[in-house]
């Protein structure tokens, strides 16, 4: 037997020598430019082949079994500039030595990188999660008035629009409720500890660089509320490379007596940058609609005046290649507005006041060496809210103050070739005071998280499987539960030019009860329930992503998702109205996205479609297996953008199918399907040193009358015009 093994071994060695003599090799070392340190986990491969390798812990790489011929070699690593060498010649039986020096390159947000999906900087095309990014260019092109408008065409998104400009707008992802979507500002939660949700109308777009939408459960990264997904609003950073002073002024006019004024100024001196901006919005807001009995009516008491302030300061220090910087941001939003409520009953004089302050300090930089980075963040938010309505029995006067502060530390370490680890912990304090009853609630929460990204090569760098397991532990003083949220994501990538991906995510998420759920003060009819458990969501999705070099870059993504939710918190009457963990639901569906450019740099087309089947699985015979309220089965978005030299023309179409408004799915009070078309024309011109950007929009082009929420009409056709002068 041992003789046989020896013979086989000799044969294998001989055959491999013989085979290797038919091929060539390329080997060498890759180092970091400024430090001369070897770089690990750098991808080195031959373009348009399946042949490649990655550097080891000493920076060495070796690509073997290369058929003789001429190739183009590519060397790349996220956070470094990419190198390409053409016409390298590989000869039979020879080893070609090629060393490379990569230079660190600041990661910009507009190069297909997500910071939300893995908590690190990852290429969108290589993460298992379904991610969409609305970047600065898209925001400028579509000129949204609020966060809801910015998000409304993203796959998987349904915006619940309660009416005019000042009315509440909330979001559902993959059929979740609005409080099951976690909204982040620079990585920190904005969801109200009192109600659990966020009014997208109250989130300023001032100073926003981009918005990332990660669909699917993500409590393993971000904790409570991330059952449907996560939306991360990322603040604009001053760009110290643009030295000097620049400023711009934007003025807008729109239907329904709306106008806006937005001055901003930027100073960039050496390694520091300061950006300050202000937005004033005033809208009379009244619009025409048809009431429930077919009579024409006017939606009065819809006025709003709001002011946004933004101040951003950034200072880079040390070696700029190490990306060490400290940024400070301050935002204030305040508004006073009418609160007409529904049209039945209608409140003609109810008013609402809001004031939000948000302060955040973030330090990021490399520590020890190039393979470890640190992110430190401290933040403070407060929010004051007042509502007055004398048109109900006895009248309503509500005043609330919410305050939040916290700290988070996060490390990212490259621990081996193609393996990185992101880990950290945080602390957060929330308090809420009812300024009428002086009812006061507070909670302190702590968390630990870890995310691993590992790339396993199969045959070559062009066939890889990336695994992204993540785990988070949360606890808080509110109910002392210890919640562990796991998630595993995997993506199989193959090909380069014709790149195809197969992806899978499985995870468990949760939504913690709110202050209202737990501590609603006892009165004649209602009482909070301090014994509530969190809502849980077990979700998984599987999908394909194709990126092909046809039609100037075709992108197609299709994903099946399913989320089973238990312990849903529903307010029910027992002896009194109180919240209980009683309901179950299941959301499942398919998301399809398509992007292409039929005419290069002239016409971009994108479309997405979501089929959603969101069902109530509670025991009640009337509501069991019924479709959840306000969840359309079909959502379609189509966008076409025409790019001319000075003009950009964008057309957007949305179709939302029928939605039920009550748990028993009474057809009589369901909302009819609707389709809306918006058109935007932007014109850019430059005279001497002044850049002028004109924008003309028609929202609801065909003046369709529709409702997103029952008894909450939305405005008809709306014209918007704005001009921006930049010096």
């Amino acid at each position, binding site marked *: 037997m041992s003789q046989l093994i020896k013979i086989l071994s000799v044969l294998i060695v001989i055959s491999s020598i013989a085979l290797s003599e038919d091929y060539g090799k390329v080997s060498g070392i890759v180092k970091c430019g400024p430090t001369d340190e070897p770089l690990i986990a750098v991808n080195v491969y031959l373009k348009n082949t399946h042949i490649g390798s990655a550097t080891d812990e000493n920076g060495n790489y070796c690509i073997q079994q290369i058929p003789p011929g001429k190739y183009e070699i590519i060397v790349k690593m996220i956070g470094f500039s990419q190198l390409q060498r053409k016409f390298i010649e590989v000869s039979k039986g020879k080893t070609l030595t090629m060393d490379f020096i990569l230079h660190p390159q600041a990661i910009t947000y507009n190069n297909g990188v997500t910071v939300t999906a893995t908590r690190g900087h990852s290429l969108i095309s290589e993460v298992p999660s379904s991610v969409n990014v609305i970047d600065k260019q898209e925001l400028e092109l579509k000129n949204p008035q609020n966060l809801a408008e910015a998000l409304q065409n993203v796959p998987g998104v349904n915006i619940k629009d309660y009416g005019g400009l000042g009315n509440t707008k909330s979001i559902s992802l993959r059929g979740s409720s609005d409080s099951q979507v976690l909204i982040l500002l620079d990585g920190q939660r904005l969801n109200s500890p009192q109600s659990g949700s966020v009014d997208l109308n109250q989130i300023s777009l001032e100073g926003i660089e981009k918005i990332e939408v990660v669909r699917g459960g993500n409590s393993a990264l971000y904790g409570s509320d991330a059952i449907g997904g996560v939306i991360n609003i990322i603040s604009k950073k001053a760009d110290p490379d643009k030295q000097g002073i620049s400023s711009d002024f934007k003025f807008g006019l729109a239907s329904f007596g709306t106008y806006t004024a937005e001055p901003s100024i930027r100073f960039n001196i050496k390694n520091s940058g300061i950006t300050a901006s202000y937005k004033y919005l005033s809208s009379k807001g009244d619009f025409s609609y048809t009431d*429930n009995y077919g009579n024409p009516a006017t939606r009065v008491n819809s006025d709003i005046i709001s002011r946004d302030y933004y101040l951003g300061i950034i200072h880079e220090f040390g070696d700029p290649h190490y990306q060490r910087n400290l940024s400070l941001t301050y935002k204030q939003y305040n508004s006073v507005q009418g609160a007409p409520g529904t049209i039945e009953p209608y409140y003609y004089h109810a008013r609402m006041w809001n004031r939000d302050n948000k302060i955040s300090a973030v330090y990021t930089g490399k520590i020890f060496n190039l393979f470890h980075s640190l992110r430190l963040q401290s933040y403070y938010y407060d929010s004051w809210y007042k509502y007055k309505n004398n048109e109900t029995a006895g009248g309503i006067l509500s005043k609330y103050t919410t305050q939040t502060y916290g700290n988070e530390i996060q490390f990212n370490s490259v621990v081996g070739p193609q393996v990185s680890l992101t880990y950290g912990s945080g602390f957060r304090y929330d308090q809420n005071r009812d300024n009428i009853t002086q009812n006061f609630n507070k909670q302190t929460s702590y968390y630990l998280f870890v995310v691993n990204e590992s790339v396993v090569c199969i045959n070559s760098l062009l066939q890889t499987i990336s695994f992204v397991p993540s785990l988070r532990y949360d606890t808080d003083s509110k109910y002392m539960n210890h919640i562990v949220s796991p998630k595993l994501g995997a993506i199989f990538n193959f090909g380069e030019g014709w790149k195809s991906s197969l992806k899978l995510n499985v995870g468990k998420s949760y939504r913690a009860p709110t202050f209202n759920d737990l501590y609603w003060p006892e009165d004649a009819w209602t009482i909070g329930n301090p014994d509530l458990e969190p809502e849980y969501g077990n979700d998984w999705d599987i999908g394909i992503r194709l990126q092909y070099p046809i039609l100037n870059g075709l992108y197609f993504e299709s994903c099946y998702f399913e989320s089973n939710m238990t312990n849903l918190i529903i307010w029910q009457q027992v002896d009194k109205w109180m919240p209980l963990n009683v309901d179950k639901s299941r959301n499942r569906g398919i998301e399809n996205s398509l992007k292409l450019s039929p005419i290069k740099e002239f016409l971009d087309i994108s479309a997405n479609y979501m089929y959603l089947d969101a069902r109530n699985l509670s025991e009640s015979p009337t509501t069991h297996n019924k479709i959840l309220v306000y969840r359309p089965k079909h959502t379609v978005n189509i966008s076409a953008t025409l790019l001319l030299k000075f003009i950009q023309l964008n057309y957007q179409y949305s179709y939302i199918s029928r939605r039920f408004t009550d748990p028993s799915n009474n057809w009589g009070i369901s909302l009819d399907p609707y389709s809306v078309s918006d058109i935007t024309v932007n014109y850019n011109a430059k005279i001497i040193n002044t850049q002028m950007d004109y924008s003309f929009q028609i929202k609801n082009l065909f003046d369709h009358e529709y409702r997103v929420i029952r008894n909450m009409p939305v405005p008809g056709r709306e014209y918007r015009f704005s001009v921006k002068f930049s010096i």
Partner: protein
Amino acid sequence: MKKLIVLGLSALFLFTLFIGCEDDPETEEAPVTATALYVLNSGGQSISVVDLETGTVYNNVATVGTWPNQLVFKAGKLYCVNTGSNNIQIFDVDDFAATPEVIDLGSGHNPQNMVFVDDDITYVSCSLSESVVKVNVTTKAVLEEIDAGVGCTGIALAGGKIYASNTAYNAATWGYGPGTVTVINAATDAVSSTIDVALNPFSVGVAPDGLVHVVCTGDYWSAWGKVMVVNPATDTVVDSVVTLGSPGNIAFSEADDMAFLTIWGMGCLTYNTETLAMVNDTSNYFLGKGGTGAAADGDGNIFVSVWDDDQVVQLDKDGTVIATFNVGDKPAALALKVE
């Protein structure tokens, strides 16, 4: 081959894009029946019809307005009082598919309940405007608005007078002031007197003997239920029944001289309208669930809506369940059609 894949995927995308055909409407048409129980489903904002001859239930046959509170069957028509919509809808019970007529009472009224004095004239209690509104349902005209008290809610007709109960609810303190009943002469529309009753007079009914029974719910907290009996001849409280619990609506069975009080989550309390003695009190209430709307027919049947279970239960005077009907979402009020 690759282009074929792309074309195939694009076709798949387009297919799924337009697969979204609209579903067919899910509505039921109720046949014309001699006897029927109409159920107001407050959650589903709809009406269910129970054919009492066959026991068949037709759900969601018509859509009602916002915060529907009461159904009244009168002269072949069904009236729905919509508190949030500030209106009264009039349905043709032989053709629920027809668009209902609407009587608009105007913003700021919050109508609660209505009572007819004849086939044309009705009085509507309005909690927010603290008034009683007189309406001609044929012309759909508001004829008069009469000041009542804070939180005007219950309403009944006895001896040619309207009895409107005022809960005196104070939203600022979540409490109740002294309960009163405003008495209006239906001939002159003048307030003839105001009667002091117990806390939170939520509903009013007229017993077979003609006495007015005012159901005082209490504050759900520390003061408990009581029924004040008013003699319409003198407009004075002549007796009372301590019911305990927090009773809401009242229905009378002439056949058994019984009054049935709905009580949330428990079902019904009952008492004898002649002796005013409790038959089923908080220690032996019947049904054990539900307790929103109630209606009684002339044959001794009592119907009680069960909010949580989306059911209406038919019982006899002893509380024995005769039938259970699965109706729409959150049934809150009932009306009987008996020919």
